[in-house]
């Protein structure tokens, strides 16, 4: 019980709401398009990738534009969460050092802000699906638990990276590089069965590898995920959550003093 209320900031929902609204206000202050940017950037990237991978590199995947848009929106959430979530503890040190604040609430609200952006992107995915004449079946609802899992993985990783970042500021540069690698190691632009069979087991090492396969299955190929894929996601999700929780418990006061 204590674990869930603490880790998911259940007692701090007003705080999380206010922090999310702070994040949004700061991010879109003095910007003309404001929240619209969260749609424009992934849309622009998707079109760019589509032109290059489909028309120049001649990748042959059915409904390729839908694959890209369907995966780019969650991927943008994931990479942005890691990027800003990692820095949350360090950049908010005055809050941690001068007033009592559960450190995870900062990261939770940051991930929630990005999740709001993702939710705004869902209509774009649906619209693309409609335009491409892809079938709508019940299997599309797999998308919802997948996003919950993605949120939890991004949240846990941001806590872990955020704590490490307090000690090693080099991590910021590592993360930038890491998300680039990670992008290509994840089936965002391709399908997992395009990976040679003998290397395919490597996908298990990627916490979000089968998650993006699942996204493609729910949005594009209208099929159910395999037990193996679901297990892989669940194991990664629980493992990372556990690590994040233990790390948080161990160093929560220490990081405040070090900051």
């Amino acid at each position, binding site marked *: 019980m204590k674990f869930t209320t603490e880790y998911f900031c259940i007692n*701090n929902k*007003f*705080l999380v*709401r*206010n*922090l999310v*609204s*702070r994040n949004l*206000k*700061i991010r879109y*202050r003095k910007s003309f398009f404001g929240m619209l940017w969260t749609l424009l950037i992934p849309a622009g990237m998707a079109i760019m990738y589509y032109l290059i991978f489909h028309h120049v590199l001649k990748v042959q995947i059915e409904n390729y534009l839908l694959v890209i848009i369907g995966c780019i929106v969650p991927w943008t959430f994931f990479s942005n969460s890691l990027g800003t979530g990692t820095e949350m503890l360090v950049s908010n040190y*005055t*809050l*941690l*050092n*001068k*007033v*009592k*604040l559960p450190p995870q609430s900062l990261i939770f609200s940051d991930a929630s802000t990005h999740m709001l952006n993702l939710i705004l992107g869902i209509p774009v995915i649906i619209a693309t699906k409609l335009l491409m004449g892809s079938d709508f079946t019940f299997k599309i609802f797999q998308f919802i638990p997948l996003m919950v899992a993605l949120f939890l993985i991004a949240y846990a990783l941001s806590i872990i990276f955020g704590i490490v970042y307090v000690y090693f500021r080099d991590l910021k540069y590592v993360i930038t590089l890491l998300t680039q690698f990670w992008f290509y190691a994840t089936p965002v632009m391709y399908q997992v069965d395009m990976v040679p069979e003998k290397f395919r087991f490597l996908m298990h090492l990627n916490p979000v590898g089968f998650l993006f396969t699942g996204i493609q299955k729910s949005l594009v190929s209208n099929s159910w995920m395999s037990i193996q894929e679901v297990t892989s996601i669940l194991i990664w999700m629980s493992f990372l959550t556990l690590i994040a929780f233990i790390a948080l418990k161990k160093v929560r*006061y220490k990081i*405040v*003093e*070090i900051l």
Partner: protein
Amino acid sequence: MADFAISLKSVGKSFVEWRERPRSIKSILSQLVTFRLKLGTHVSKTVLEEISFDIKKGEFVGIMGRNGAGKSTLLKMMGGIYSPSKGSIETSGKLIPLLELGAGFAPELNGYENIFLNASIFGYSSNYINSKLNDIIEFSELGENLYKPVQNYSSGMLVRLGFSIAAHLDAEILLFDEILAVGDIGFQSKCLKKIKQLYSGGKTIILVTHSPQLIEQFCNRCIVFDNTGVIFDGDSKEGTGTYRRLFSEK
């Protein structure tokens, strides 16, 4: 219900300090080659040792001591921001620490938005804040400035906002760390009046200050710190005397 507001039992605090070594590429390379790369060293420093006292409900305690005597560290431990290295601290009742100017504010947001952010950091709901909103705004006397970003505030304006929020949220224990000094005389005396009013309303107040007059005038108890420990705990007149003697000896 316990009759103490804060209870400290043989509390000690030491910090591990990180001393970065002067580095040059040459020295790093030579250390790397010999597998002895050290970026710095950890130095342990004791700030407070074996502090034990109880603060009863409804007391008005002044805390004094030289710069660096550990007053702020103690307040941060009382506020739950730091955890003690030794011993234990128990608090009973809602506590609001007001430790530094502008702490808990988002500089990019305006004063009005920051009232909500700040109060939610202290754990209050939006409904509750709304019910206190008028009092807070009126007391702060910020007028139109309330809708300016907090980063453009003067230190006096920051303390106006911070104090107004903390004083109107009905916490049982309030910690103030030497922040009233920046307000103008008018606001200072208004704050002190408010603090006195809270005190007579049964709230527990803990105030760190370097002003003996303030302590003598308001506090019913004074604790003086020196060299990592309590050197005096008792009547406020005697306490300020002890404090003055700290500096007259040399």
